[in-house]
């Protein structure tokens, strides 16, 4: 476990993701990056609270919105900036781009739902190898529209794959609200396959941390699939400049569901300011390094 239970350490991770992503959104229009991006602003507590429980060797499969997962996994900000800039020093040498990252036991792919059987297969492989490693798979509410996800849930349950399905329900897929795309409930989708599903509607990292702790403890003692459904809020555009939502509704989310604001109250003001300053300079340095890095 990456020993992230103390408040300052959790805050530091939340702030790293936030500041990284804000830098991406600010710099994109200036032409600093090439291609696409999907920022994690508003959802930081999910990655931080869940991935704090990883052991060395545990595996993460992520999706298009992977920067936050990658940074919380321990990925390097300079390598990620460089990947978005198409630099040789990027996480995947500039070949993958924003949605296609692989480092250590972290993998992401931008094809929605396609990772589900692969993550299940990886979990089954680790089980067969006797490695004790478990797999965490991040899915959005939109990805739950893909048929292969359900084939994979069935197989995960039948064959006892040690995997935690984490659904980040930000109530929207690109521009489509969940009500227009999903019949029935998220939890019942898992329960139909005998996969226990816990739900949390919170942007408080302590709560996601605790909910995930429960799932990981169960997974490690009785390996088999489990699901954690995290109702959450996306503050930024789907990609960049493509938010079709009512600005007032987004303001409301920012005011009530900001993981940084919620968690910051647990730190004293001076400590928070010091962390913010430190993160600002680390991210600025990572950005500057990536900018100076060579093309592939």
């Amino acid at each position: 476990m990456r020993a992230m239970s103390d408040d300052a350490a959790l805050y530091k991770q939340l702030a790293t993701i936030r500041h990284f992503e804000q830098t991406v959104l600010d710099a994109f229009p200036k032409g600093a990056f090439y291609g696409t991006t999907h920022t994690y602003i508003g959802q930081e507590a999910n990655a931080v609270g869940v991935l704090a429980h990883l052991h060395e060797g545990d595996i993460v499969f992520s999706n298009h919105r992977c920067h936050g997962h990658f940074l919380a996994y321990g990925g390097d900000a300079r390598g990620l900036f460089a990947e978005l800039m198409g630099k040789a020093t990027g996480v995947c040498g500039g070949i993958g781009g924003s949605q296609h990252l692989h480092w250590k036991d972290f993998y992401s792919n931008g094809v929605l739902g396609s990772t589900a059987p692969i993550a299940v297969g990886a979990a089954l492989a680790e089980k067969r190898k006797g490695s004790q490693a478990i797999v965490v798979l991040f899915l959005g509410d939109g990805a739950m529209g893909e048929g292969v996800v359900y084939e994979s849930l069935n197989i995960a349950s039948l064959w006892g794959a040690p995997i935690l399905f984490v659904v980040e329900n930000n109530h929207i897929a690109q521009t489509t609200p969940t009500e227009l795309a999903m019949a029935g409930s998220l939890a019942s989708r898992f329960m139909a396959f005998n996969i226990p599903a816990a739900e949390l509607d919170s942007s408080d990292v302590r709560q996601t941390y605790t909910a995930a702790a429960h799932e990981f403890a169960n997974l490690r003692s009785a390996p088999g699939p489990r699901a954690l459904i995290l109702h959450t809020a996306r503050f930024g555009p789907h990609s960049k400049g493509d938010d079709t939502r009512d600005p007032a509704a987004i303001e409301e989310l920012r005011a009530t569901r900001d993981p940084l604001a919620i968690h910051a109250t647990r730190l004293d003001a001076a400590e928070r300011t010091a962390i913010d300053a430190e993160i600002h300079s680390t991210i600025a340095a990572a950005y500057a390094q990536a900018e100076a890095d060579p093309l592939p």
Partner: protein
Amino acid sequence: MTSVLESLNRGLHAAFAEDERVYLIGEDLLDPYGGAFKVSRGLSTQYPDRVWTSPVSEAAIVGVGAGMALRGLRPVVELMFGDFSTLMADQLINSITKFPAMYNGAAKVPVVIRTPMGGRRGYGPTHSQTLEKLYLGVPGLRVLAPNTLSDPGELLKRAILEQDDPVLFVENKVLYPKAVQTAETLKDFEVEQTQTEFAPVHTLRLKGTPAPVLTLSAYGYIAELTREALTRLAFEHEIFCELVVPTQLAPLPANGALEPALLASLERSGRLLTAEEGTFSLGWGAEQLARAAQHLGNRLQAVRRVAAAEQPIPAARNLEDAALPSVEDIISAAREMV
């Protein structure tokens, strides 16, 4: 005699015996059934922990195989019919063959997807197709099609154990009961075996015949029909041909080069006739012809393709026969060329 089916079955057994990382996933695999075409027979009895009979979920079983391969195992996934490969195409195209390159060389996905293709069994439009052409040209995918000229099981075993690329292993259904050829059964032919990067290529000509005026090229089961056509062209029409039979359909040599054995034969004959069971346009033969044209220029005197009609394959025997290439089709195309 050893049939192609027995050879493939032995190849699987040998791979399982040699390496504990080998797994088999697919529908209806358990003995006594042993898979719809029986290629996997005996494995579930001998290796019950490593043979997983699966739900009817082509996309997921291929994806599960991919995840296992990514994490160091050597899975084989059996697709009951090649027609159903469309259901797993996303896994193959957007994940399996992408990971090695898009993760900048840091990941390998050595999964072998085996599947029967082809008609002549009366199974109708959705269980008779030869669809591998849809996957030829997908970067990072090795497509292999065994034939009777060398040991199919050995090729399968090597694909599982000795290379790291994802493989689509295409088994023509009608090939299953055919005998694997031996020096004795091929005694009328001069046979040259060369090697592409991974798999064998065979060049055949009838012993004691004059210089070839035509090169025939075909793979898989159609190579059987083409060999028969070659013999009849010689005896009935005094048209002397060479036959070049590749086993690896993709990747092809870099930069548009011709397979060296095919180039060598064309240097002798100056004419190329390809035969395949996939549909006519935009297929395997078209690519061979394009490469031949590029490399031989005006030394290439004639080209032609024999392939399946561009229509769904009917179930009725006479209609199915008419839709698929036959020995007669190959002979008449050849006669028009010389």
